[in-house]
């Protein structure tokens, strides 16, 4: 079980102009004192088409983390507009908050983000070159997508094999074609029997 559980993420300053910094108030709970810092990142998905347009808006270390419940506000600058493909500036995209411990990602929280012109005129006839000053960013705060990963929390062991770090379950937003069913336990089962993705 994960030593760190994210209890809540509140999206602050939302909706806001496109250029405003992102602000997430993160509440998490830690089962025991962590000897190392947690690393949080905000990743802005510039284009749905490729990961290469992803921007790490910022990454912070959070620590020290003694056992208990903690909160902090993670603020990061708005994405660099120069790195966003013009065709993807307006519309729905995603912002991700990830947390890693000892270099291993154990939680990924995703929000849909809708970038829209507030001005009805611009909305009707959007300029070819996006006008970022007129864009409003609206994070769909009520509907976070949380994915948890199984990681090795201890320092003594080597890092787990990547093959073990498979998403423990299919995402809820995927078409339910490959719902996991309990495989009959014949002989040795793989460490994670939910590898059906």
């Amino acid at each position: 079980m994960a030593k760190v559980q994210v209890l809540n993420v509140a999206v602050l300053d939302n909706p806001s102009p496109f250029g405003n910094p992102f602000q997430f108030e993160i509440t998490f709970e830690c089962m025991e004192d962590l000897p190392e810092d947690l690393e949080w990142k905000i990743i802005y998905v510039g284009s749905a088409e490729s990961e290469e347009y992803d921007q790490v808006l910022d990454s912070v270390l959070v620590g020290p983390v003694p056992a208990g419940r903690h909160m902090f506000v993670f603020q990061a600058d708005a994405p660099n507009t120069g790195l966003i493909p013009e065709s993807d500036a307006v519309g729905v995209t995603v912002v991700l908050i990830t947390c890693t411990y000892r270099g291993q990602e154990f939680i990924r929280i995703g929000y849909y983000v809708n970038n829209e012109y507030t001005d009805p005129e611009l909305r009707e006839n959007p300029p070819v070159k996006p006008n970022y000053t007129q864009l409003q960013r609206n994070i769909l705060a009520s509907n976070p997508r949380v994915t948890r990963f199984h990681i090795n929390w201890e320092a003594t062991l080597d890092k787990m094999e990547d093959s073990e770090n498979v998403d423990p379950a299919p995402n809820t937003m995927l078409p339910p074609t490959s719902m996991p069913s309990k495989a009959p336990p014949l002989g040795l089962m793989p460490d994670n029997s939910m590898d059906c993705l």
Partner: protein
Amino acid sequence: MKLLKPSWVNHNGKPIFSVDIHPDGTKFATGGQGEDSGKVVIWNMAPVLREEDEKNENIPKLLCQMDNHLACVNCVRWSNNGLYLASGGDDKLVMVWKRAAFIGPSTVFGSSSKLANVEQWRCVMILRNHTGDVMDVAWSPHDVWLASCSVDNTIAIWNARKFPEIVMTLKGHTGLVKGLTWDPVGKYIASQADDHSLKVWRTMDWQLETNITKPFSECGGTTHVLRLSWSPDGQYLVSAHAMNNSGPTAQIIERDGWKTNMDFVGHRKAVTVVKFNPKIFKKKQKNGSTPKPSCPYCCCAVGSKDRSLSVWLTSLKRPLVVIHDLFDKSIMDITWTLNGLGLLVCSMDGTVAFLDFSQDELGDPLNEEEKNAIHQNIYGKSLAIMMGSQLSSTIIENPEMLKYQQERQGNQNPNGAQASGPENQTPKLTNVLNGESLEDIRKNLLKKQVETRTADGRRRITPLCIAQLDTGDFSPALFNSVPILPGSSASTQLIPQISSDSSTANSLGLRPSHDPTSTSPNKTAEDNKDSGTAAVNSIGMKSNLLLTSASKIEPMKALDSRFTERSKATPGVTSVLHDNRVKDSSSVKEPKGKDETSSDSEDKIVVKSMTKRKGEMEGAEVVEKRKKGRPRKDTPVSLEKEPSRLTTPVALLKLPTPSIQKSFSTQVSTDGVTYLEVENEVSVVSGSRLSQLKWSREGREWDTLLPSRIIIATGSSDVVAVACEDRTLSVFTACGRRLIPSIMLPAPMSALHCSGHFVMALTASATLSVWDVQKQTALVKNESLNPILSGTEATVSQSFLTRQGVAVVSLSNGKTYCFNSSLETWNLIADKQDSLVQCTDFRSCVSSQDALGSMGPLALTQGRNLSAGRLASRLSSTPHHLQQGMTLAFLEKQLASALILLSASEYRHWLLIYARFLVNEGYELRLRELCQDLLGPVHKSSSSSWETTVLGLRKRDLLTEVLPVIGQNLRFQRLFTEYQDQLELLRLK
């Protein structure tokens, strides 16, 4: 019989693998597959039982859901006391849950279900041991142990009072272990596995009692679980999947001889689960009919892969009821209500069914007393474990006892959290909010939170601790509350603030030097930092983004995948991060002092200086400090002058003698700092060299002269003793008056000790003498150390004299002896190799206020050794009865040793521990003997040799201390009353 399938009990269509009704009947738990994890759900029972409650929207159905298990949950089981829920899953973990009373409604963050949890159950313990999926868990009667079995072929027995301690791992199965059941009497635990066997293990020594294979030889490993069950009267054990003539059965195994003559037949596919009704029934007496004496019988539900359920009474040849097509898939688990009339069944198809029987159908359930009577008839009193829940039904027979019990409860209540059991594990909650409301904190969190820069320019935030573990005083308001929207002005103000922070960090020079070959993003970040503008920093982070085109994918789908795909580790960041962590943390300014790392360095310095000082103190006390002055050459002149020394037979010199020093000083007696200073050969008067002994205490001092060089000088608060080179011993009062003329010793002095009026001399020829210089008597007269030294290579490593004048000698082989002057024997009081010490475990009998009483000569000789023994007992898994015996032997030895050392406080200390141990483990005879000795004869008779005191402690006072200890166990209430009354009687006299 009524049948109901509450559709609202579901895991969103995912399979439900386990169901268990809470002992109080108000709720039940289900375990199975969740959306992205394993899932445990606690449901309200009322809407299942009553239709009006089901329709009433104000009555919650779902009480709590927990998705902490990373993979499917195979089993959920409530503890018998209802305080805990244990769950085991495919993530190889067993989790123990406890209800947290103080937290308001919450949801699981990110779960699609927006239903708030009504009750808050939190994981208080994670038990990691299994290397494969955990298939079944079971609490022992009275919740002493928790057993879990796994596909790793083992069964783990956990100490439910000291989680996560493992009592034993039962190994022997050669296949996946898929079911567990405890004998209701507590003598056995049975397990069924895919290796075609059912094994019964003894709880006494955790060894295999029997291995039953015959009925299972034809079985294939086709069922997900094999949940077997033991009848409430303990007489029958019923297996899951067995085969008889190629037909699936549930095998009945008789306790008596483990005979396998009967089975439940009729299911068309393998039996997955068997569950006995917790009640024993007797025939319903119809009004008017003549009451016929009838045998009590049990009731059993059997679930199968063939999707049908059968309910059997042991008094009937055929099943009471069979229900086909109850589910679409295999039945996975069955649970009865405690009253024995209700039954919940769950299935792989993700639904549950509730069966409601009437007493007409099942019969009259026996009450607990009648059930206990049956147990007593069959097994006798001795088998039943006398534990809390049973004791609560024991009648308190006397008002004194009642009063005592009430007082005890009253004392316990204020600090109930510290009571024994797993509650212990829960750290106490502390509010660190200092009265500030959470809303206030949230408003200013961004401004208030401590943010620093690490050496490589990364932001580091110190999170605000809003509640310590566990259950928390955490305001429910936080969850799902509308976020407070800080004005945009507030957020823009932040930037300069951060940069100023970082620049101060810079100016303080806390930045360590860098490897010039560090990766470019970091370097950029550093450069940015140097220029003092934090805002530019993010560019550095972005510089590693690559801009290349990609194939066209439908946007939404592509976005979806982003939620789950793991990001690649930012290269170069983490490695540098680790290098700088330590230095970085020291720069963090923590207002709350909660920062462990930052305060660490300071602490260490303090500790260092402390130990140093301590070392000096000790040095002053013990070690003879060599003063300045030339190292003295051994002059042959002195030898010539004292030819007597040469006559000493060298062969007899077994013990080393200290070398003669020109001058030395020692500190003696701790009350009032007293120094003894010796200066040999201060002056030569008419050919003989004189030595000076100087005594000083708080400004007062005296000195005296001795005709021979002084080898050892020591003293107590009352006397000063000096041994000289010419084998004489001189004793002075604290004021410098000579008490006795020089004592001539048979050999040179090896060690000399003073304590009170006692002087102890250990000569080089290995003889011991102890004198009481006040009474001018010899306690020990030239006693040889041969009995303890012969046959060993050991020498005396340490010796001392207790305040009571008992000489203690430690040898280099780890053994410590004292000489008992009345028996005139050497007695072994401590042995570092003693195996008894290694295996004793009496920690539970030591109370915190006992710590003071344990100081004394006994602790001095064995102190560190003792704690090592305690540790060893935790590491090795000695069978309980063996450990019990060893602990008893050890404690009795301690008691005797304290007695022979005349150490009253230690005697009292060990007496109380001994009494507690006897009470805990139920040694009645020994307790009675102890009490009898402490009480003594009630009527005085001249022939009685009973002493009223032991080591100056009044025995009856000790008894008054011991009695409350005895009163803690209701089982000994007769004993308690008996001695309480007699004590009272004596007091009146």
